[in-house]
């Protein structure tokens, strides 16, 4: 088990910035540019690790603890999902709730760290993050409930592995609804367009990035790295839900999983190229739409019976 | 014969659309409607068999309503002859052909023996009457037309859903032909029948102007040209009523009379309540009589809901009301032409300036509110009788209360219009705005006289053929 965990950590740490690189390349392609190299996120993180930290005198230990805890928490969350042929190293009854709340913990720490700076911009970002993510959390849980209902299991990797497969022929439409609403949650959680634009640095419109304004050096690298891993893990879950590959051989599983992840990155890149960032007051609307979609899926499952 | 009656106005309308001059169109209209009336009259000798695989057919009830439609249409078409001369502004091509298409659609409503066809016919009446309401093309009439179209279309969409539910309920019958449904009513699935009855009730009730869905009615009636208001109020509402009665027939046959009657009672009382509230202090005399239509539709529903004598009374009231409403709206047409205003306060000294119109207004007012010796009085009395016989004392109490309130509300406005007013009120702009130059045109008088005479005669004397028809129709609805 120790080996498995180390393997998971290794894969996640090594591959996750690549996802960001693919997204960046896709966007550059659609904009007709050559764009930064595929490995640019690695360079960025590496560059940040070479710098020192600067701390404001008003901050306390919370500010310093938050980035490292965030990174640790998202790494832990990756233990609950299978990555291609690799089984999930940790699984127990109810881990689905732990999975959801690990992100809650990360978000909580980021928010209080942002408040810790005493900066009005960061406070604004924290309040937005809180408002939108509390809407997103409802949707995420609704999706999990539907999946749990479909499989009658309460262990994340079992839900994914065994039963998505058997549900596809009968409940394909429901899984599509779940996929659609989960995709919106994914965009919100990772602060992608059309929710938030990670490239813009205008405090008034930023949501997620604004909270990291005062972080520097290693801390900032942790936050970037954590964000990349978060996208990787949540994206991995998305791929696991939508692609029923779990009965194949483990090599094929790995191939399918990697293909799915690349497709996901391309999709996000395309969505980001096609859409503009939404106005802030439209974001709750999007989340409510996601909620209603998930709700319809849930109702359908209940009506059809499992 | 049945097909002829449907096609005649249809062709008439098509010809009217092609004809180049307003004058020619105006002469076609009375002729077509007269021939239509003669054709309808010939149906009273015997009832034709159903035709077109059972889609078309006429029963006693349908024939009764068809006759009312045709008679009122003749009166209105002659009235229009005189009325439209004053509104020579633009071509009335669309108006005239819509009018004739409207007649055709209403004829089809009375002849439909298939619930789907009935739905199509009622929807067609909505579509053809929309251009009629929009005749003046003023902002107000556009607003009224929009509300009319939208509310009635939504209502009619619900009715379509209800018809589909009915088809689901009739799975074991296999069709939604009225005859087959009535014969095999015991095979209907009751929960779906109930659901369908509620939807059809709301849907056709919207068209009929029953209370919570009546909101289009005052607007449409007040903004349409008066002859059109007369048609809307006198016959269109009755066509929708026929739609509801067909549903009621099915309910009776399926043994769900009590359920349907409760619906009728609730809607009826609600309509009376709404009419009573809005009649008081109504500033617009056409809206005033439009609310009186809501009231009378409520009375019809109440009569059906009470059953027994109420069925006969309700059908009788439907006839009386059609003619009385036709009459009063034609009178308002005369008043509007004389004063160019629909406000009660602008009309003063009617009895002095236009004695004939004034007297007709009094007559019409007494007729629509149900004062003896008009036929409406007797039909309203029958419904009261039915309420007491069936021990619905509370219903009887509210019925009398609302009728009294509505009578007083209308009387107040009408009396103000008749007289020149007291000193304190003459401070406003000088009355008769159009001046006394207007002579009362005979063509605008005779149709009113004709309709008034019918209501009056029905108050004294019930022809035996009408009595038979009413008895036969109420027997269809489960009365004895």
């Amino acid at each position: 088990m120790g080996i498995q965990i180390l393997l998971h950590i290794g894969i996640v740490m090594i591959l996750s910035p690549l996802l960001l690189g693919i997204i960046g390349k896709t966007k550059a392609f659609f904009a007709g540019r050559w764009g930064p190299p595929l490995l640019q996120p690695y360079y960025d993180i590496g560059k940040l690790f070479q710098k020192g930290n600067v701390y404001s005198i008003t901050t306390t230990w919370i500010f310093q603890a938050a980035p490292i805890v965030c990174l640790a928490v998202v790494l832990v969350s990756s233990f609950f999902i299978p990555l291609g042929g690799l089984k999930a190293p940790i699984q127990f009854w109810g881990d689905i709730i732990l999975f959801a709340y690990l992100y809650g913990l990360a978000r909580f720490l980021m928010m209080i760290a942002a408040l810790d700076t005493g900066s009005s911009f960061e406070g604004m970002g924290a309040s937005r993050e809180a408002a939108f993510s509390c809407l997103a959390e409802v949707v995420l849980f609704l999706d999990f409930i539907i999946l749990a209902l479909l499989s009658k299991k309460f262990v994340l990797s079992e839900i994914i592995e065994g039963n998505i497969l058997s549900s596809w022929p009968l409940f394909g439409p429901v899984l599509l609804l779940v996929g659609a609403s989960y995709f919106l949650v994914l965009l919100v959680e990772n602060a992608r367009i059309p929710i938030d634009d990670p490239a813009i640095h205008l405090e008034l419109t930023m949501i997620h990035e604004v909270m990291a304004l005062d972080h520097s050096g290693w801390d900032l690298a942790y936050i970037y790295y954590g964000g990349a891993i978060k996208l990787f893990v949540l994206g991995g879950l998305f791929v696991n839900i939508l692609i029923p590959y779990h009965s194949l051989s483990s090599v094929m599983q790995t191939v399918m999983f990697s293909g799915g992840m690349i497709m996901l990155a391309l999709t996000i890149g395309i969505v980001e190229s096609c859409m503009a960032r939404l106005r802030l007051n439209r974001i709750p609307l999007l989340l409510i739409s996601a909620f209603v979609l998930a709700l319809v899926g849930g109702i359908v499952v209940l009506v059809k019976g499992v | 014969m049945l097909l002829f009656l449907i096609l005649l106005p249809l062709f008439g309308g098509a010809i009217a659309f092609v004809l180049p001059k307003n004058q020619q169109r105006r002469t076609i209209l009375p002729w077509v409607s007269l021939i239509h009336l003669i054709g309808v009259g010939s149906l009273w000798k015997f009832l034709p068999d159903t035709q077109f695989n059972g889609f078309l057919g006429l029963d006693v009830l349908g024939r009764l309503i068809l006759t009312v439609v045709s008679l009122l249409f003749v009166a209105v078409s002659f009235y229009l002859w005189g009325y439209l001369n004053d509104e020579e502004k633009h071509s009335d091509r669309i108006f005239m052909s819509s009018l004739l298409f409207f007649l055709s659609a209403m004829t089809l409503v009375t002849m439909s023996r298939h619930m789907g066809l009935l739905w199509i016919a009622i929807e067609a009446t909505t579509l053809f009457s929309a251009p009629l309401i929009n005749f003046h093309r003023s902002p107000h009439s556009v607003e009224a037309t929009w509300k009319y179209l939208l509310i009635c279309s939504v209502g009619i969409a619900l009715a379509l859903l209800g018809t589909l539910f009915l088809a689901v309920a009739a799975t074991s019958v296999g069709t939604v032909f009225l005859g087959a449904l009535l014969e095999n009513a015991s095979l209907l699935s009751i929960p779906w029948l109930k659901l369908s009855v509620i939807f059809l009730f709301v849907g056709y009730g919207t068209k009929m102007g029953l209370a919570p869905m009546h909101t289009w009615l005052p607007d449409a009636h007040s903004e349409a040209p008066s002859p059109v208001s007369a048609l809307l109020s006198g016959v269109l509402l009755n066509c929708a009523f026929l739609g509801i009665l067909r549903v009621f027939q099915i309910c009776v046959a399926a043994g769900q009379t009590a359920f349907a009657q409760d619906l009728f009672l609730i809607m009826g009382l609600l309509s009376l309540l709404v009419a009573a509230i809005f009649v008081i202090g109504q500033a617009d005399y056409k809206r005033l009589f439009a609310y009186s239509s809501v009231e009378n539709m409520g009375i019809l529903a109440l009569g059906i809901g009470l059953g027994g004598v109420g069925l006969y009374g309700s059908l009788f009231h439907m006839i009386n009301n059609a003619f009385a409403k036709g009459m009063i709206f034609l009178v308002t047409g005369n008043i509007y032409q004389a004063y160019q205003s629909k406000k009660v306060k602008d009309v003063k000294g009617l009895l002095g300036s236009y004695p004939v119109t004034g007297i007709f207004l009094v007559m019409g007012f007494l007729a629509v509110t149900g004062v003896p010796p008009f036929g409406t009085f007797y039909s309203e009395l029958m419904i009261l009788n039915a309420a007491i016989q069936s021990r619905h004392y509370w219903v009887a109490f509210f019925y009398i209360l609302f009728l009294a309130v509505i009578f007083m509300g209308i009387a107040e406005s009408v009396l103000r219009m008749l007289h020149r007013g007291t000193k304190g009120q003459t401070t406003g702009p000088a009355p008769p705005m159009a001046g006394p130059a207007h002579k009362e045109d005979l063509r605008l008088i005779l149709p009113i006289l004709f309709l008034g005479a019918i209501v009056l005669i029905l108050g004294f004397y019930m022809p035996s053929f009408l009595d038979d028809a009413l008895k036969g129709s109420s027997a269809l609805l489960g009365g004895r």
Partner: protein
Amino acid sequence: MWLELALILIIFLGIIILGNNRLGTMIQLFALQSFILSMTPLLVHPGIHAVIMTAATIILKVLVMPSLLFWAIRHVSIRREVQPLIGYGKTLILGGFFIGAAFFISSKMDLPVKAISNLLVPSAFSIVMIGFLLLVSRFKAITQVIGYLVMENGIFLFALLLLEKTPLLVEMGVLLDIFVAVLIMGIVVNHINEEFESTNTIHLTALRD
């Protein structure tokens, strides 16, 4: 399975229409919804009736009505619903609530007809309710027409249940009626625009008691 996919997509599009404020997008979404809808007769009872229904629906609801509506919005040059009566978020939540109610009610009614899929009736109810919601919560005349059409789509869905039984005549009549209704509504929309220089039905409040 394919039918259910179509039904879910139709509901999905209904929800998206409900949350949208651009009239052009709404019309496109409606056309898409109608297109998926027009495929359903083929999935339910393949046969000559179904083919005719599909063809008629594609012509009327996918081609003619959207282009009429586009013509109307070009003519009156409005692009979006400015201020709905009930906010978008609230309508969406209400919509979700109504869908739940639709599923609940239809689970209480047992069908005498052999149902093709037990999702058909609840989805039909849901679409009717979404259309109704759209109709009552918006002020623009065109949005109201779209709401009416969405409602009609729901009714169409319900009529699928009876495709074998109801004669074609009635179905055709229904489609034609809807078409004429939209035509006349379009003309009236145009009149509203001429008279008020806006197709906002909020201006239509002169007539009241």
